């Protein structure tokens, strides 16, 4: 039989059984829609990752400190009693004998301990700006001599410190930034920043709204590839003078003042203190050092530490490696330098490359999960097709007998049923593609980025046809093998 005539017969059968065809194809509809959405969500995820990291310097390394869980608990239970127990920072380049002199910072003590550890060689390196002060005292007392230094350091009392890392509150400081700049080779920039969620008032806001407020240095903008729409970014001068100025992310400016123009040079109240808006960032759409610049408010680092950070700021030191391939070496060197300063601390070090890889891997995992789901849906849909075709063969056994009596070949009968299965699948595939286009706005409302593509639609229809044909083959083959006399006499 000619292919055209075979297809005509298939078409007649489909038209005569429209409702059954639609019901049969439901599994395929869902499968095809899933394939389209899997590809679209996968693409959306990839683009999201790409956009999030587009301004991220691949050589960026973030260093932060986190207190161990038991120390956090202990500090919480002992809060209110802590006085001067915090080990803020050890002196870099102290020489061999000094580590044992670090205070463990007994939370319940508060009393000055004795400085029992041998001598302190090279004390001339010790700078007056040493971060000290008690946990509740804040500030950075300018100890002029080492005698005062002793009051901040308490002896360990003899326990093995190597087993008890991250027991003390450590605040990374500008001194650490300087250490890294001096002692770590292969870096192009270092900066320190901190961020907190702080209430903001002013502009068109009817009530206080919480925003991410980031205390940053002048070089933060360059390191994070931030660009300004108007005004200027935080300057060293702002920072040195602890000025209450701020730079708004594009989205934040729009939300608080209505527009960038209205925001510029306006007054914004951050934690109930007035700040002058010195600049507005361009729309960035990316995440930098864990901060979404579009929705953040940037203030000078020192201003943030003084007015917003509170007693336990947790700054992040960001280092840019000159060569991306040297990131691991740079990280190792940073850890060495910091270990010198804080022998009992382990820092959390994240590099941008790892973040990108992690985000990409996470996206890949999600995609694989969705692909697996689509495969299962297709198998279920295929079994549905097979089931319906078996029923169809059973129902049409007499018809098959007639065709065989009239001289229809096994091949023609096989092809007729296979084409029917394929046609049901194509119809299901096309309906599925249409369905996926229809539900895309709904999925997008759920904050899932969907990037529909022609390739996804074509793949879905191809998968549908393959599924229908594969699962339709066996019933079709069974139909073609029917014995004419038996089939003809089947009621």
């Amino acid at each position, binding site marked *: 039989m000619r292919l055209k005539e075979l297809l*005509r017969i298939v078409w007649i059968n489909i038209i005569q059984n429209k409702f059954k065809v639609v019901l049969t194809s439901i599994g395929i509809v869902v499968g095809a829609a899933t394939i389209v959405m899997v590809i679209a969500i996968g693409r959306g995820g990839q683009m999201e990752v790409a956009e999030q990291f587009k301004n991220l310097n691949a050589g960026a390394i973030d260093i932060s400190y986190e207190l161990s869980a038991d120390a956090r608990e202990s500090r919480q239970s002992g809060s209110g009693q802590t006085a001067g127990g915090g080990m803020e920072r050890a002196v870099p380049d102290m020489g061999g004998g000094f580590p044992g002199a670090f205070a463990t910072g007994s939370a319940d003590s508060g009393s000055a301990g004795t400085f029992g550890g041998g001598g302190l060689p090279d004390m001339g390196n010790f700078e007056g700006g040493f971060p000290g002060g008690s946990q509740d005292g804040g500030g950075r007392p300018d100890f002029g001599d080492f005698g005062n230094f002793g009051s901040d350091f308490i002896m360990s009392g003899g326990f093995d410190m190597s087993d008890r890392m991250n027991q003390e509150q450590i605040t990374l400081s500008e001194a650490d930034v300087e250490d890294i700049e001096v002692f770590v080779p292969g870096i192009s920039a270092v900066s320190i920043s901190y961020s907190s969620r702080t209430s903001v008032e002013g502009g068109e806001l009817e009530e206080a709204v919480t925003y991410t407020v980031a205390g940053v240095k002048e070089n933060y903008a360059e390191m994070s590839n931030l660009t300004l729409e108007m005004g200027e970014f935080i300057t060293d001068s702002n920072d040195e003078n602890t000025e209450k100025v701020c730079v708004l992310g594009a989205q934040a400016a729009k939300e608080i003042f209505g527009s960038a123009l209205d925001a510029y040079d306006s007054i914004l109240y951050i934690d109930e203190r007035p700040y002058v808006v010195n600049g507005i960032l361009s729309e960035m759409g990316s995440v930098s050092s864990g901060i979404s610049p579009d929705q953040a408010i940037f203030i000078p680092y020192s201003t943030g530490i003084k007015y917003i950070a509170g007693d336990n700021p947790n700054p992040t030191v960001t280092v840019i490696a000159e060569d991306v391939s040297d990131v691991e070496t740079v990280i190792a060197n940073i850890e060495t330098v910091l270990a010198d300063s804080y022998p009992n601390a382990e820092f959390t070090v994240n590099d941008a490359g790892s973040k990108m890889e992690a985000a990409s891997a996470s996206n890949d995992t999600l995609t694989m999960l969705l692909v697996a789901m689509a495969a299962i849906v297709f198998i279920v849909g295929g079994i549905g097709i097979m089931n319906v075709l078996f029923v169809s063969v059973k129902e049409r056994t007499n018809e098959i007998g007639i065709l065989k009596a009239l001289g229809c070949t096994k091949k023609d009968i096989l092809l007729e049923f296979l084409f029917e299965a394929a046609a049901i699948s194509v119809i299901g595939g096309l309906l599925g593609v249409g369905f996926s286009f229809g539900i895309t706005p709904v999925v997008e409302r759920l904050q899932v980025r969907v990037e529909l593509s022609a390739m996804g639609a074509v793949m879905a229809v191809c998968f549908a046809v393959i599924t229908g044909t594969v699962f339709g083959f066996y019933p079709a083959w069974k139909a073609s093998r029917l014995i004419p006399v038996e089939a003809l006499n089947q009621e």
Partner: protein
Amino acid sequence: MKNPQCEEAGIDDGTMLRLRDVNKSYHMAQEELHILKNISLEVSKGEFLAILGPSGSGKSTLMNVIGCMDLADSGEYYLDGIAIHRTKEKALTRIRNQEIGFIFQKYHLIPTYTVMQNIVMPLLMRGMSYQEAAESCMDTIRLLGLENRMEHKPSELSGGQQQRVAIARALVGRPAILLADEPTGALDSSTGKEVLALFSQLNRLGNTIVMITHDLGVAKNASRVVRIVDGELQE
């Protein structure tokens, strides 16, 4: 369609159908049912033969063997010079399409097709296009008075009309032989008479017809009647 390899020397050109000692048995459970017993039969070209027999006599099995839908266990069967007993399934399919026109008691029309689509089906199986097939069967359609029913579905026709469609379908391929299995069995007597008159007309036009029936009145319309009783043929 004649296959030289299957042609048997000595077969008279005037013989359309020859059965020699044909046997057919079926295995039911553990019992063997011997349905056709040493059947020998010759039908000449242009003959109208009726095979008369009661229910269970084996006439339908004989019809299936003659119609190449079932093969005999033993014996020889020649159809228009072709040795059917030595023919493979694929060739039998072609023989059914080109040499035999089937007319069934229950019409066996495909319900989802129109009258025209049912009638052209044997021609489509030969590789003709629908257009070609439709054109070539117009004479047959006119002969059977179905011109105004071509786009109807079988369910929209009377029993007699459906049987006419079935006859048209059997005729369009210009087969060597028409095989009719109880062609009037599902029709009322007047419609049955019309169909039988049509058979006589087709026979006069040169068609070889083998009709199976249990009804002597129907069988009398044929030019020759043979009886089948318990699987044995009696002239």
